[in-house]
Every structure is written in structure tokens, then in C-alpha cells.
């Protein structure tokens, strides 16, 4: 155990229980304590571990405090927040500020019968019926998940009865507004048979917030259910963000995961799905757009456990400055998963000599009669394409931006929610020279 954890432990055990949700429930306290023990026993991961070879979290370990706090947002930020929320009437909006639900900023809207959309902290504090999967150790893919269990502040619980279809997306906005804030969101989405929903998880850092966010999202899809999940990471430039998104899929279900990593000093996403029933469809799409000294790491894993499932994975990276991207994508085809159709690709555009990408697509196949492909590329902007655009009167800088935008757009275009697609398109263009002009012409 290192000194930081030891000193933090003393502080955490004394202070934390008073303001963490569910402190009145003995089983929650036990679950938190045991998770914390698991975290302490392992400690922060080091680069000696294979899964953390390219991502150094020493800076997180050095933080003076990991304890979640309850800093209220300043009024100026609150006003600015509204600018960031999608048109409220077109979503079911929940806003969390520094890890806690803000009922003033949220606009739940009307939900159809059979749909429940609640704050996890509220459920824990009112001792209401909590999802059974809560604090399930099965989803502790990294030690950060144990830390999240120990310190979960709040989050969203979405439960849909069989056949319920949410027409409007659920939009979860997690805002970090304080300095040195530690935030532990936990989201649980449970969709009954044939239920359908779109959920957007947007992590946004105000100003110069150098927060640490450690998030866990658990997803359970019953037979024939469908979930579109779109994560937009737009943390402040000094923020650390570590997250796990883990899905369990029953027969014939569809899970589409989109991950856009545009901000933060260090970001790590572990995204997994287990295809437990036949004829599941699973797609993982991702885009990391990095510059300066940003670091973004995506570790994905798809387990084909049943026959005739399809998985598609398209990850792309655009790296400028001295940024560092990591992609590790594992697809495991288990012995029972005959007729698996799996395709995975990771393409990267390096815009500077100092930028670095470590990419590792992996296929492990233990079944016969499967169709699996994977590949990774690393390259620069294509000279022929640049010349083609310039020969039409487009200046060199705009031509570069158009090509970068096009490269990103192949991933953005896969998002089904139109407002979200446009939002992300604009965020990417905001980062590109002459991007404003391109925006006007869209």
C-alpha cells in the first residue's frame, strides 16, 4: 500500500460515510468497505500491468485527495450550463454537478408508462428497491471500478419494462466545476425484453477544473432490447477521467456504443460487452481527437459467448501536438459461438511528429465456422487528396481541415440521434483551423 492511499484511507473512512448516499443501509456500507479493501489491496495500477502498459496513472495517485466532496456549482457556471444542454424538450435531461444531481438544472420530462428514470442517490437514501446488479463485482474490470463502488456519489438508474420504447434520448450531463473535485458517478441501465432507448453520457469540465472522474456504467439488455449509448468526453484540459462501460446482452439484443474522447488531460475508457444469447448485435464506435499533451486510452472487449452474433468495431484517432492515443481492442470468440461475424478496425491519423499511438487489435478465436477480421492503420493526411481539394480553389489549411473532418465524420455519422451528431460534428470543427467556415456550409 502506498503512502497516498494510506493517508487518504484514514481521511476517507472518517469523513466519507456522512455524505455518501446510502450510508443508512448496512449492506451498502459493507459493499463500500469491501470494495475499498479491494482497491487498497491492489493499489493504483502501474505500467508493469499489461492493461496499463501505455497509460500512467501516477498523477492520479499523487492527488492530495480522492475523497468525493460536495462543492456546489457557482451561479455563473449554472447559467452557462444551459448553453450546453441540448434543447431540453427533446431529451430527458439529468444534470449532475460535481457528482450530485441538480434537480434545478434537470428536466426529466414525461416518461411513458413502464419507464423509470431515477437518481441512484435518491434510491439509496430512500431505501427504495435498488437494482440487484448494483455493486455487482462482475463488472470490476479495473481497480477503479472498486474505487467507484467505495465512493459512488450519485448516478442514473434507468429501468424500462418489457416493450417500452423511449422516443427521446436520455441525456446525462456530468459537470465538473470545482477545483480538485473527485467525482464517482454510477449509472445503471436495465432494459426489459424488446425495450429500446438512447442514452447520452456527456462529461463536461468547466473552466480550468482539474477534477478526477471515476465513472462506472452497467448495462443489462434483455432479449430483443436495444440501446444506443453515446459517451461524449469533454473534460477540462487538466482533468483526469477513468471510466468503465459494461454491457450484458441477451439473445437478439442490440447494443451500440459510441465514445468520443475530445477533452481531458488523461482519459481511459474500458468498454465491454458480453453477448450471452444468440443473434445479438453489438457495435463499438469511437473517436479520439487529441492535441497538446492529452492522453486517451480505449480498452474494449467483446465476448462472443453464443452463436450467430455480429460485432462491429470502428475506432479512429486524430493526434496532434505531443498527444498520446492508446487503442486495445479484444474480441474473444468462445467455443459455443459458432457463426460469429466480427469485424474490428482502428485507424489513426498522426498530424505531428511528436504524437504517438499505441494500437493493439486482438482476436482470440476458440470456435469453428466464424468470420472475423481486424486491422489497424497509422498514417498522415494523403497528398493526393490535399492536391485534389487545393486544385478546386480550397486553401491548404482548409483542405487539411476538410480531410480531418471527413476522417472523423465517418465515425460521427454513425450516431443515430441527430442533435447529438450535429453537436459532436461542431465540437470537432471547433478544433480545426477554418472549421467555422466549414460549419457554415454544412
Amino acid at each position, binding site marked *: 500500500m502506498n503512502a497516498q492511499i494510506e493517508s487518504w484511507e484514514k481521511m476517507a473512512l472518517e469523513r466519507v460515510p456522512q455524505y455518501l448516499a446510502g450510508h443508512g443501509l448496512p449492506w451498502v456500507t459493507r459493499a463500500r468497505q469491501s470494495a475499498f479493501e479491494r482497491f487498497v489491496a491492489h493499489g493504483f495500477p502501474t505500467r508493469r500491468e499489461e492493461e496499463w502498459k501505455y497509460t500512467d496513472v501516477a498523477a492520479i495517485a499523487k492527488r492530495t485527495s480522492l475523497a468525493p466532496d460536495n462543492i456546489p456549482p457557482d451561479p455563473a457556471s449554472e447559467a452557462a450550463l444551459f448553453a450546453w444542454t441540448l434543447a431540453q424538450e427533446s431529451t430527458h435531461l439529468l444534470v449532475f454537478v460535481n457528482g450530485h444531481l441538480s434537480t434545478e438544472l434537470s428536466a426529466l420530462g414525461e416518461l411513458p408508462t413502464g419507464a423509470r428514470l431515477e437518481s441512484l442517490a435518491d434510491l439509496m437514501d430512500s431505501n427504495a428497491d435498488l437494482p440487484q446488479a448494483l455493486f455487482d463485482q462482475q463488472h470490476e474490470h479495473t481497480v477503479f471500478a472498486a474505487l467507484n463502488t467505495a465512493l459512488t456519489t450519485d448516478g442514473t438508474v434507468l429501468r424500462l419494462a418489457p416493450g417500452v420504447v423511449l422516443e427521446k434520448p436520455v441525456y446525462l450531463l456530468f459537470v465538473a466545476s470545482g477545483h480538485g473535485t473527485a467525482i464517482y458517478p454510477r449509472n445503471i441501465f436495465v432494459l426489459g425484453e424488446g425495450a429500446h432507448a438512447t442514452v447520452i453520457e456527456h462529461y463536461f469540465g468547466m473552466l480550468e477544473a482539474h477534477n478526477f472522474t471515476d465513472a462506472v456504467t452497467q448495462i443489462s439488455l434483455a432479449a430483443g432490447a436495444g440501446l444506443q449509448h453515446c459517451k461524449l468526453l469533454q473534460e477540462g484540459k487538466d482533468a483526469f477521467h477513468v471510466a468503465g462501460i459494461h454491457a450484458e446482452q441477451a439473445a437478439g439484443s442490440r447494443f451500440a456504443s459510441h465514445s468520443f474522447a475530445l477533452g481531458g488531460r488523461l482519459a481511459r475508457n474500458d468498454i465491454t460487452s458480453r453477448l450471452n444469447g444468440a443473434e445479438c448485435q453489438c457495435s463499438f464506435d469511437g473517436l479520439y481527437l487529441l492535441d497538446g499533451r492529452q492522453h486517451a486510452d480505449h480498452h474494449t472487449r467483446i465476448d462472443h459467448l453464443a452463436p450467430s452474433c455480429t460485432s462491429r468495431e470502428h475506432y479512429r484517432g486524430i493526434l496532434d501536438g505531443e498527444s498520446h492515443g492508446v487503442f486495445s481492442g479484444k474480441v474473444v470468440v468462445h467455443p459455443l459461438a459458432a457463426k460469429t461475424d466480427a469485424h474490428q478496425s482502428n485507424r489513426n491519423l498522426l498530424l505531428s511528429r511528436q504524437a504517438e499511438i499505441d494500437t493493439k487489435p486482438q482476436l482470440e478465436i476458440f470456435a469453428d465456422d466464424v468470420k472475423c477480421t481486424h486491422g489497424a492503420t497509422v498514417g498522415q493526411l*494523403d*497528398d*493526393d*487528396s490535399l*492536391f*485534389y*481539394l*487545393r*486544385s*478546386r*480553389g*480550397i*486553401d*491548404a489549411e*482548409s*483542405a487539411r481541415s*476538410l*480531410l480531418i*473532418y*471527413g*476522417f*472523423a*465524420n*465517418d465515425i460521427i*455519422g454513425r450516431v443515430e440521434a441527430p442533435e447529438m451528431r450535429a453537436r459532436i460534428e461542431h465540437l470537432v470543427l471547433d478544433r480545426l483551423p477554418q472549421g467555422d*467556415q*466549414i460549419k457554415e*456550409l*454544412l
Partner: protein
Amino acid sequence: MLSVKNLHVAVEGKEILRGIDLDVRPGEVHAIMGPNGSGKSTLAQLLAGREGYQVTAGSVRYLDMDMLAMPPEERARAGVFLAFQYPVEIPGVSNALFLKTALNSIRKQRGLPELDAMDFLTLVRDKMKLLGMDEKLLQRAVNEGFSGGEKKRNEILQMAVLEPSLAMLDETDSGLDIDALKLVADGVNRMRNAERAIVLVTHYQRLLEFIVPDVVHVLSQGRIVKSGGAELAVELEQYGYGWLENEVQVS
């Protein structure tokens, strides 16, 4: 309009063009013919501003400007256009966005206001109709998944929208069936006028049946070995390039 004098060009130390002289005046249609490897495409690409060529001697003036000193976008804004032999695919960028960006860059240079979305659509739809192009191609990524014929027609569409003063077409006829060829030729013929010059670079005489040139040049081994009227193309079709190359060696 275009004046090429004693142009020598090398690629990676190998001389490809060995003293080209060419004068193109407004309103004229020139055809540059020649066998594979004669330097036709190099000339077209060099004039459009492609990098990677070393000009070892000679000069190119366009509208009294030193064309070789201009980057490709400046040439385009000054009215130069090249229809590519192999149009490039630009994934993720719609044809509409590409055309709008190009047109507005050029209009800006000409001191014209940017076209709004409606005017742009009206303009492009009309031109697409004339070229027999499906309007859906506007929302598709530039040239991505286009058939060979669609790519070539897309080049002509860009030319029609950008309205260049000097239009060069590099092997635009290759890969076209007869119906597509006629549509493309009609598109080019519609653009012929007293102010605009057109240079057709082609291996075969086929295109010249539909776009009758004023002057035909035969390029061989980096030199223009013969120039003449439209009838020269017909002779070439009959006797092949071997006939001329022999004639040149004898003389």
C-alpha cells in the same frame, strides 16, 4: 491565355517533358494526344499545380502571370481547372460540402458574394440534370463508391459549377460507355465560348468525335512532335502513333 515556352520537367531526376511549346488562346479547344508515357498527364498535372515535379528550364504564363510560382489553389481561383484522370475519393466529406467550399473560395476571389444554400442547390441540380447525374450523389462522400462513369461526370459537374477560364481534361473519356461519353461531351461543348479555353488530354480519338478541337498536338517522348487541325486526330487513329514517331526520327 496560356503560354508554355521550352518547358523541361523532371520527376525524380528523370526528364519527362523535354521542351514543350504551347500557346492556347481564349475560345480555343486544344487536344493533346500521345501514347502512354509520352508526358501528357505530367503536363496536365504540372499545370494544375501538383508538387513533386522539377522544372529544369522554360516558363509557363497564364493571363500574364508566372503560373509556376502560384500554389494550386491560386491557380484554381484564377480560373484554372483540371478534370482528373483518377478523381480522388474524399471519405466523410459530402459532394455538396466539397462543391460549396470550392465554389465559395473561388467566388470570394472574384469578389462575388457567397451563394446561400438554396441558390447553390438550384445551380447544382440543374447542372446535374444535364449530366444525367443522380441528385443523391450530392449527399454521398466525394467520389466514394462512385462508378468510373460517375466519377468522370462528377469532374465535369465541378467544372460546370466552378466555370473556369482554362479547363483541362485529363483522359476524361477513359472508362466511359458511349452514352456517358455523349453526356460528358455535351457538358463540355456547352461550356465552349469565346472567353474560355479548353485543353483535352487524350490517348484516343474517340472523344474528339464529339468535341471537335481547333488544334491537335501530338506529344511523344516529352515533346510536341506535330500540331495540326482536327484532321490530325483522324490520321492518328488510322495509322497509330508509330507512324508519327517514325516520321519524326526520319526528319
